[in-house]
């Protein structure tokens, strides 16, 4: 009995991880933190990032699925439900979906679920919520650093790349290689939404 209990404790998220995933629809609203007004044109990336465990330690390597959208005039955005999608053999969704929100001139937000979940049907903790974005205040170097982080936080998405590229107007002199790279990625025909 003790052996059975031990195995039962170890196996759930390994052998019993769901073979398929579905996602519920996601919708939320984005407002300016100071004015409370809705922000139109915020790029929102939803990233169902997979966690893969290796021998010794693990980490997030790739996404099961990614899509992006823009907020409308009311600051609202939505992603439709999807599924089923087959779970890769050696990876699971843990805190996915991750949401990345970015608009020129604002600080980005990175929103993941609060807890690990082994659920086959994925939902975002942030659905039906109102998310505040704050205006960016800082130096050019700090802004470029923040843009590097934004680029790093998800799989490449055309609208996100274009939104980052817009800031080259102000900061290109600080990091020309970075903005050249962003523009190259944005125009790369291999990148599709």
């Amino acid at each position, binding site marked *: 009995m003790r052996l059975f209990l031990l195995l039962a404790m170890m196996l759930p998220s*390994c052998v019993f991880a769901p073979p398929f995933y579905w996602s519920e629809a996601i919708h939320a609203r984005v407002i300016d933190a100071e004015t409370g007004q809705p922000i139109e044109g915020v790029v929102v990336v939803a990233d169902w990032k997979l966690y893969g465990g290796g021998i*010794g*330690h693990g980490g997030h390597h790739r996404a099961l699925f990614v899509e992006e959208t823009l907020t409308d005039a009311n600051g609202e955005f939505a992603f439709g439900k999807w599924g089923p999608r087959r779970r890769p053999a050696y990876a699971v969704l*843990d805190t996915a979906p991750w949401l990345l929100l970015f608009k020129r001139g604002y600080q980005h937000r990175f929103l993941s679920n609060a807890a690990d979940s082994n659920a086959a049907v994925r939902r975002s903790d942030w659905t039906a919520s109102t998310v505040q974005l704050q205006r960016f205040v800082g130096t050019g170097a700090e802004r470029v650093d923040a843009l590097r982080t934004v680029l790093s936080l998800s799989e490449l998405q055309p609208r996100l790349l274009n939104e980052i590229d817009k800031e080259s107007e102000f900061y290109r002199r600080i990091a020309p*290689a970075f903005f050249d790279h962003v523009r190259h990625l944005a125009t790369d025909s291999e990148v599709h939404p």
Partner: protein
Amino acid sequence: MRHLTLLLVSSVIALESSYAYDLDTHWRMSLAATESSSLMTSVLATLQLDKSSKLAVDSIARPQINDGTAAGWIEEGSVVEDGDSDCDSRVRNHFYNPLDNAGYSRGAIQGAPSVDWGLEDPGSINGQENSYSDARGYFWSALTAETDAERQRNLALTFRSVGQVIHLIQDAAQPQHTRNDSHAGLTCPLTLGLLGPKSLYEAYADGLAKTGHLGYAGYANVSLPRPRDYWDDEVGRGIAEFSNRNFVSAGTNFVGPPYNLEPAPGFPSPNGVGARTSTVDVQTVMPGVNLNGTMTFIGTPYDDAYTMEAGFNPRTSTYSVFSADLAAHGLLPRYALNRLTFDAALALLVPRAVGYSAGLIDHFFRGTLEIAPPDRFTYLVAPYQDGNGSFTKLKVKVRNTTPAAETGTGTVQAVVRYRRASLADPLLYPAAAGLDADPSYAVSKPLENVSIGRELQPLDFDFSESPIPVKVGDVSVIVSFRGPLLGTSFTDNDAIAFGAKDVFEPQLVDFGNSTDYDCYQGALFDVVGATAAQRDINRDGQRDLFGPVTETGAYVKLQPSATPADWFAPDTASFASPGFRYAEFARFVAVQDQPQYLLMTESLNIVDDFSGEFSQHLTWFTIGRSINRLVEKDGQLVHEVSAYSAGPYRGTSSPLHTDLVNYNVYANQACRNGIASVARPMHEIFGSPVGND
């Protein structure tokens, strides 16, 4: 209170697990390390790159973090070291216990010690292609590459591999990696969960990295004699030793009662010596949460054997949520870690991970050479015959400038980097040359069994198998040494030292004999075959026209402008012609590194064809350097030109032409101007560089 404590800690753990340890912690630490290392300053400059220069962009695997710059490649390396697959086996080699020099060990599953995996200094390890040793091989290949594509590819691999090595340094600053504490997560079916739960410490760190709240600064770049020392040395200065002896981990926390704390089995430190507990109000450490109660932390002293500083970590561990229940039943308490202990650990460990990473980058690129001009002043000299020429010999002086290390006997090789011109001859019309965006490289034969001392020593490099065309711009010289570097307490048997010199561009010099014309009252007269009567123009019985003369041996010497002009021995000349009759000239091309220099021409045996009079001649001019290069500004290549353009001279065309002329020509402006367009064309004869043998 017991239930309250349980609720509180559960909440803490749930919040932490909203993040997961993946790319961002390593990426951010590597970014900080790269920016504080010497790479961004002296190393890139020596490699003739800058922070914006891009390398092998078609090979980028992680475009989210790698923009193709040197820093981008290091950052990509620091991320891809964890592998590309979801269950990559290479991560088993990311552990190192400095107490027994062992790697990961969990039953039958073993990994190589991360220091061995990262350095491959005991020998090659199957599946490892991006170790410190591999990086050195890539770097040497880059320094001696014959094509720009090959150079870029190998530089990218160098930087990427260095990034993969510092990933291991960063892992060694994570106590779970130095205390054999598995934290794979439960996602790999083959492991049946035996390889440990997901690391909350790493997850928490990654969350901070993603939101810009992880602190990286505060620990100076580390400098240690050997790469291995960055993990583990004889006196405890390695980062693996620091994290192993000063911190507990989820699976190797304290045991025993609070009044008699004992270390985790197999890990003698930290232990109860000097430990103190502190109980704090929840509202103090987590203001604003809807909870009341206390938390008890265990603090322990720590020591840093590198800085020789000691301190006290007040939050090494905490009482677990079960401690109160266990105590109530007379059982020993359990200890746990939470975000507050993680904060305390990260504040000590992350800046050190950055400082050790930056130090290892500096160590990798620490070998430096200084390049200076040779005794003959010119680095490269070549004849220019029938409109063509190539340099086959490079002369330089070199000395070792590596801090605290002498070179042993090794291989030295030189590379000349240049840009070809596609539109016009850069020797004649530099502004219209149209330099190629991609540089070209010529590689010398290696010099074997050479050591490079602290004093400048002459070295001659043979480029006969890889000649350098003279019609090029943007020239620079790179000299590299591969062999032992000997410190006072160590020997690195396979190290690289390198240096570069951005020299000025090749300059074409014509020199010859124009004594076939002489000048009388502002008019030029052809004196070839002239009779005595024809030479007495005003019929006063005095000879008015002289020449031509024949020179047996004519020499040109280039030297620093500060050195006074003086007669020189022919064997110290830069270029020699066997001699000139009238209307003959020779041409050569030279490369030097001074903004201005002196050009001296000398003929020691001059005989007047008509009178048989003997004379000698020395003259000199100050010449300005030639700049014709592409410079990266704001990521764009900009053509920078400051050089002489060619002008016509007796059927020839050259930017610099110095001829022996009769005195009357020299003294009269009209004749001096007119001799360039006299009817008789110059005839080219061939000379040769002096000292190129």
